[in-house]
């Protein structure tokens, strides 16, 4: 995110009254331009992706929570800022958080004096969600349960041990990957209280501003309790502005303002050419938004595939100068970062000091080394002074290293002849009260960087040749979707399916949560895939091996005892998951006890048995959310409720019971929950240590459960018991080993990054989609299928400019003792023994597989391994330079 300031034209004195103008005077970069006005630009584009996001619900109008009146009632978004180290209280949790740290107004000053570290904080869930009494948001916002748990944990971490955190909730909804464990840890490890109730009222002690909460507990008792702060877990809302623009764009919305989509095209709006992503699609958290983003890119790209590469531009490449063997001529550039560094560090003195260091040919100070003119000056200096190593003392390489490396490349230097040292974050920011010491430290840092840069060598980046065909393992919804998108954009794609037909588990489903018929659309998709010229479908086929790395995979496949080989560049793992076979509730002992998928089958074939049923019971969490399988299977609540509604619709007189732990109809599925209750479906809650009991007495089937409202055991006589069984991963260790991708404890694949890389693996060239990642409904599986295709496309599109990093390990074969530690210890299997040539038997590192982590370098007893760019002698010289006293 660019940390850039902007002028608010409604308040700015210069713009409104033509006074002030201070910012223009003080801005050292002359970035202020008051004359800028609104411009209208017309753009012609092939597709639109509409990703307007949401606004946090505004709870001011809720008088029962008194957000507008009590200073210690705040929203979760405000609390987020309070927890943040860059926020108004610098991460310190305090009461009256909304007041400035040093208030000027007398009234605020008095309040601020009452500030204290809170001892008790309460979170109220479902503020602006699942609520049609106070607001018109009947849906579940999907993210608040998790963020409240997170905020409570972090608040406790910030405050130390004695903070008491309570979360007041209706259902805990933690159906995401690793979420249930996080929730369990919050209870068990962090001691956070979870109280299932809706708070009746909040009052304030006018003197202390402490807050009193009144609610009814599980046993029907009225409880009064005092808290220092209340955090309202506000929901996600689509703004009026977004709704208006949607109308202008001509796209259909649901009654709640979310975009209407089809489960089989979950990122396509009702208007041709407009794709949507993010919360606007449905309330969702970050990883799902990230999946949406890539999925929308895939959908937009599919529509424009013939126009690909028509408008993009490429950068001209400058010939690299050979500096090998030359004496180092170092250029040192010291950045003021405006006053960020110069305000503390005497940059002039540092620059002068740099000039005295060995091999430094030239040193220069600039106000903003990263600005465009400073960059072009740098290129000129490099050429003019014939510099061959560059040191930049500025901010963090994390954000700016690529920029400076590009500058080096523009002046013909290899981009690794470069060393950056951070005299801002590591120095001027932390030592702002000790300018002398900071200046001294800046000199030390520059000296160390110069010592290291003097030994820098140009590094080669190996070109990776990419075979541009793709193998998709698994021909279910996710796999087919992924293959279809890749094939549409012109890549030859193979689907490997172990069954005799495409479609996977989706064949067993009746309807989606949105009410669409699964089989019709599934068969359409299968037909499209089979008829696509770029897709080769291999049914009854299994993957027997996989060797190689990104762009260069090779597999043996087995089909009807015949083996064949396939070479490909990209792999998508979409192996899905399967239904758990229950081992409790008398399953298998009575034909009236079935699973959710069995019921779907009955609906599909319109089984006449359905007409004879007068009472039906569903038991939720069968095999989920218990110690041996601690995750939530995500789809079962919605699935059972959907089926319950179906039963009620067929026979309104039927008694339908759902025995549940938490109802997790996240997003707009909440509307189904509401519908089910309206239709008279009865919901009975149970605790995991008090599971319902099923007994078969003669011809009758009984379910005994303790009713949470009556707090008494009830016995239901039923004609049908449906078990909402867990979705269990295939735990395919063989496949995981083939592609060197990890599985979590439960057997689901571990993605590259829980938030930002949900459709790919850390192993480059291998992508992930579908329930092998985590259980998911139809639309989410398809979204991830598309997302994995989009991620794969970015790799395939760059195939001619794909290079390894220069910072990788390499072997000095003369020193190698062939002991094999490196081969054993490398997590990426990059080192191996040479099989031919002069150094046969010695270790060598595959530059494509090496990630430059240095593990092998550290473990090599013989000193044969070196990390290019961070060679031992460079590190040593840096350390010795530190030891030198100025």
């Amino acid at each position, binding site marked *: 995110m660019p940390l850039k300031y902007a002028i608010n034209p409604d308040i700015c004195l210069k713009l409104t009254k033509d006074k002030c103008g201070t910012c223009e005077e003080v801005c050292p970069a002359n970035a202020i331009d008051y004359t800028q006005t609104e411009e209208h630009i017309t753009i*012609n584009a092939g597709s639109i992706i509409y990703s307007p996001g949401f606004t946090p619900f505004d709870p001011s109008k809720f008088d029962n929570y008194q957000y507008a009146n009590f200073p210690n009632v705040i929203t979760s978004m405000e609390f987020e800022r309070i927890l943040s180290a860059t926020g108004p209280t610098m991460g310190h949790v305090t009461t009256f958080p909304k007041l400035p740290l040093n208030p000027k107004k007398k009234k605020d000053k008095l309040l601020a004096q009452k500030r204290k570290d809170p001892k008790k904080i309460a979170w109220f869930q479902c503020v602006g969600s699942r609520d049609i009494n106070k607001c018109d948001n009947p849906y579940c916002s999907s993210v608040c349960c998790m963020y409240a748990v997170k905020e409570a944990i972090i608040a406790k971490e910030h405050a130390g041990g004695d903070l008491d955190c309570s979360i007041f909730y209706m259902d805990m909804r933690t159906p995401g990957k690793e979420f249930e464990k996080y929730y369990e840890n919050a209870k068990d490890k962090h001691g956070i209280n979870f109280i299932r109730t809706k708070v009746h009222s909040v009052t304030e002690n006018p003197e202390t501003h402490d807050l009193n909460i009144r609610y009814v507990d599980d046993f029907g008792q009225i409880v009064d309790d005092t808290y220092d702060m209340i955090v309202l877990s506000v929901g996600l809302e689509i703004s009026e502005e977004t709704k208006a623009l949607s109308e202008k764009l001509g796209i259909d919305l649901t009654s709640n303002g979310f975009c209407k989509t089809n489960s089989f095209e979950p990122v396509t709006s009702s208007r041709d050419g407009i794709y949507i992503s*993010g919360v606007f699609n449905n309330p969702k958290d970050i990883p799902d938004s990230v999946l949406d983003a890539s999925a929308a890119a895939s959908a937009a790209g599919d529509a424009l595939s013939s126009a*690909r590469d028509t408008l993009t531009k490429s950068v001209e490449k400058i010939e690299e100068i050979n500096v090998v063997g030359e004496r180092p001529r170092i250029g040192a550039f010291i950045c003021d970062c405006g006053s960020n560094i110069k305000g503390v560090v005497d940059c002039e003195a540092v620059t002068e000091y740099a000039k005295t260091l060995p091999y430094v040919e030239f040193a220069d100070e600039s106000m903003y080394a990263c600005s465009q003119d400073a960059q072009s000056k740098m290129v000129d200096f490099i050429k003019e002074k014939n510099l061959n190593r560059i040191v930049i003392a500025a901010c963090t390489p994390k954000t700016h290293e690529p920029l400076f490396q590009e500058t080096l490349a523009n002046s013909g230097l290899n981009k690794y002849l470069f060393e950056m040292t951070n005299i801002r974050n590591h120095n001027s920011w932390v030592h702002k009260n000790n300018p002398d010491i900071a200046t001294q430290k800046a000199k030390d840092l520059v000296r160390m960087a110069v010592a290291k840069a003097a030994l820098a060598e140009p590094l080669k980046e190996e070109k990776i040749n990419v075979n541009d065909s793709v193998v998709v393992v698994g021909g279910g919804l996710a796999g087919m979707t992924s293959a279809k998108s890749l094939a549409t954009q012109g890549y030859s794609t193979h689907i490997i399916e172990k069954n005799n037909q495409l479609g996977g588990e989706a064949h067993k489903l009746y309807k989606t949560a949105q009410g669409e018929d699964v089989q019709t659309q599934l068969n359409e998709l299968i037909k499209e895939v089979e008829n696509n010229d770029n897709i080769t479908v291999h049914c009854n086929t299994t993957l027997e091996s996989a060797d190689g790395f990104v762009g260069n995979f090779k597999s043996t496949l087995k089909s009807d005892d015949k083996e064949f080989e396939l070479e490909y560049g990209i792999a998508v793992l979409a192996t899905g998951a399967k239904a758990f076979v229950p081992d409790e509730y008398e399953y298998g002992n009575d034909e009236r006890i079935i699973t959710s998928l069995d019921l779907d089958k009955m609906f599909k074939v319109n089984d006449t048995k359905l007409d004879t049923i007068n009472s039906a019971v569903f038991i939720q969490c069968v095999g989920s959310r218990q110690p041996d399988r601690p995750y939530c299977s995500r789809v079962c609540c919605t699935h059972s409720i959907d089926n319950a509604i179906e039963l009620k619709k067929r026979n309104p007189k039927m008694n339908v019971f759902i025995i549940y732990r938490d109802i997790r109809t996240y997003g707009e599925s909440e509307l189904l929950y509401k519908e089910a209750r309206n239709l008279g479906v009865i919901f009975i809650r149970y605790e995991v240590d008090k599971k319902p009991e099923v007994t078969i007495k003669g011809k009758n089937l009984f379910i005994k459960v303790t009713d949470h409202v009556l707090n008494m055991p009830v016995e239901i006589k039923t004609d049908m018991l449906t078990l909402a069984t867990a979705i269990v991963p295939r735990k395919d260790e063989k496949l995981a080993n083939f592609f060197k991708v990890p599985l979590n404890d439960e057997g689901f694949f571990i993605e590259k990054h829980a938030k930002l890389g949900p459709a790919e693996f850390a192993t480059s060239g291998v992508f992930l989609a579908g329930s092998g990642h985590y259980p998911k409904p139809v639309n989410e599986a398809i979204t991830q299928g598309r997302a994995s295709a989009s991620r794969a496309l970015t790799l395939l599109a760059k195939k001619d400019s794909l290079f390894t990093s220069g910072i990788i390990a390499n072997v000095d074969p003369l020193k190698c003792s062939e002991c094999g530690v490196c081969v054993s210890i490398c997590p990426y299997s990059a080192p191996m023994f040479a099989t031919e040539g002069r150094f046969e038997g010695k270790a060598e590192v595959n530059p494509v597989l090496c990630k430059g982590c240095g593990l092998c370098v550290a473990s090599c007893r013989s000193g044969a391994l070196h990390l290019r760019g961070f060679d031992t002698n460079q590190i040593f010289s840096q350390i010795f330079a530190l030891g030198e006293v100025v």
Partner: protein
Amino acid sequence: MNKQLIGSVVVIGGGISGMLSALDLANSGYYVYLVEKGPSIGGVMAQLDKTFPTNDCAM
């Protein structure tokens, strides 16, 4: 209809989802216009402290 396809995409909204859509498209051969009504991109995620369940920094 025989209209020439245009190889560019407008992305409206510079939150996490919009930004990543734009990046994916730009990296796979399409020209992208990213439109954001506020002064900087990043959206709501940039205002968050940490993210669950890994407690990674949201920035």
